[in-house]
């Protein structure tokens, strides 16, 4: 007899495979999702009492399918027509391996018709198997609101004429990029929240990594899938050192590196080497390479900033992203001194006007160059503009630290 927690894990693992099978058979994404949820509820009620079945996935598919046929029959009866969809041989599930089905599901959930927020919610529900309450909690949104968001997302997919299949031809790389972007957004949401008091939602980061692993099993040759997984592993490896016991933010150069997860780092580095060997370096591989440079430095001062500066240069050329340019400016400062970094920041005044990270970075470099007054002002601007409470505390504290130093070193009578 399994423990309740084992059953819960089992159900979560099974969810996407069951949903994929049912959608493949019946074609209606929204109704299939409902039917699968109902089957899950049945399972969580019946299995503890009657024992977990030999083939849990098969059991769930069977129960969900029965609910679908019941629903179709009652709808047909209402319409006064016989509907033979359930018996249609052309809709029988093809014998594809489970992980391919889950990948197709991921492709469906990252449908271009959906906003990023909707795609994220739907992916977490349909592929990661989180409950609506869990997803709502992760995004600090009431459960009912999140349920509506997911329901509307399902309807958008329903409205699209796309059957359950892998997107073909030129559509595929674009859709895969979309899938990777959604996974990365989920990870970012878990690693650094954009607003609110909690700095990291570890569960979301872990889910993103799990989704990337699923994608990797289905696409073992794709270097960007490997790159994304490597990036997330290398980044998440730092999480134990990122905040202190009180939840305060600890910047990279001050982190206790002995707390970093070495196993995750080793796996990330190996994945990256595998990906890079395949040629066609993409943006996730570059970001992973930068993360690997940090991970490889035993102490902050051992960091190969010149290498990092070069990698950011490549990444900037590839993406044109001003945030990448910002990070490159930091690397420039570490190689050639703060004035080199500050010069690069001037180019970002337009694209990143008013962005808290521009002010925070400038403050840091101004402090490095000894211009305390200007640094204090920039830290203040950054603190005002950030959306994250822990980050706001950190920036305010930096301003306070410099203020205290300035006060104690100024001549008497000022």
């Amino acid at each position, binding site marked *: 007899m399994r423990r309740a927690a084992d059953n819960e894990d089992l159900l979560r693992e099974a969810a996407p495979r069951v949903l994929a099978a049912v959608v493949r058979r019946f074609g209606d994404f929204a109704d299939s999702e409902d039917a699968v949820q109902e089957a899950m509820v049945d399972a969580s009620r019946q299995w503890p009492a009657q024992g977990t079945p030999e083939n849990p996935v098969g059991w769930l598919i069977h129960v969900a399918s029965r609910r679908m046929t019941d629903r179709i029959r009652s709808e047909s009866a209402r319409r006064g027509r016989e509907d033979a969809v359930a018996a249609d041989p052309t809709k029988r599930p093809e014998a594809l391996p489970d992980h391919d089905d889950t990948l197709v599901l991921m492709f469906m959930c990252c449908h271009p018709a959906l906003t990023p927020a909707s795609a994220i919610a739907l992916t977490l529900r349909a592929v990661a198997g989180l409950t609506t309450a869990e997803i709502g909690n992760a995004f600090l949104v009431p459960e009912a609101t999140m349920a509506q968001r997911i329901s509307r997302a399902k309807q958008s997919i329903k409205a699209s004429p796309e059957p359950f299949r892998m997107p073909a031809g030129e559509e595929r790389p674009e859709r895969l990029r979309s899938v990777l972007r959604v996974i990365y957004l989920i990870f970012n949401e878990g690693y650094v929240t954009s607003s*609110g*008091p909690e700095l990291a939602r570890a569960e979301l980061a872990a889910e993103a990594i799990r989704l990337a692993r699923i994608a990797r099993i289905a696409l073992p040759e794709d270097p960007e899938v490997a790159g994304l997984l490597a990036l997330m592993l290398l980044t998440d490896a730092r999480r134990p050192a990122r905040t202190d016991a*009180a*939840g*305060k933010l600890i910047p990279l150069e001050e982190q206790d590196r002995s707390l970093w997860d070495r196993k995750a780092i080793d796996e990330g580095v190996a994945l990256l080497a595998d990906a890079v060997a395949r040629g066609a370096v993409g943006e996730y591989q570059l970001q992973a390479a930068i993360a690997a440079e940090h991970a490889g430095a035993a102490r902050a001062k051992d960091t190969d900033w010149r290498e990092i500066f070069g990698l950011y240069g490549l990444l900037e050329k590839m993406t044109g992203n001003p945030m990448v340019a910002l990070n490159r400016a930091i690397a420039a400062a570490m190689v050639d001194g703060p004035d080199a970094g500050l010069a690069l920041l001037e180019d970002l005044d337009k694209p990143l006007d008013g962005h808290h990270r521009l002010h925070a970075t400038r403050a840091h470099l101004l402090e490095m160059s000894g211009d305390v007054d200007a640094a*204090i002002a920039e*830290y*203040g601007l950054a*603190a*005002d*503009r950030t*959306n994250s*409470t822990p980050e*706001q*505390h950190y920036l*305010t*504290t930096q*301003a*306070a*630290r410099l*203020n*205290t130093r300035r006060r104690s070193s100024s001549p008497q009578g000022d």
Partner: protein
Amino acid sequence: MKFMVLQAYGGVTRDVPPMGEWTPEAIEAHIKFQKDLNAELQERGELVDAQGLATPELAKFVVSNGAAAPLVTDGPFPESKELLAGYRVIDVESTERALEIAAQVSAAPAHDGAPIEQSIEVRQVMGPPIED
């Protein structure tokens, strides 16, 4: 009974400088106080929500007649000290308990470690109709 416990930018009767001019230790003590209070309210089952709001400089004010494009102006308008810094929503047994909690908020440590003595607004949240 649900109440909002509101902190505006004004209402500090003592002479307290902006937080950027405090010592790091004083800032940490203040933040810890707020965290501990939230934890206490959470543990007692009284905390519904607690949030800080973005700086008043980023506040926007919108007026619309429903037809033409709305008029959007930048804050701080009209008096920045009337603008909200943050709020808590609490669910408590009585008005007295809500006032007790507000008193705790008002006594958060300031730059010198002594209570900040901020004036805290307490407003009951309207609820559903009471059945006879």
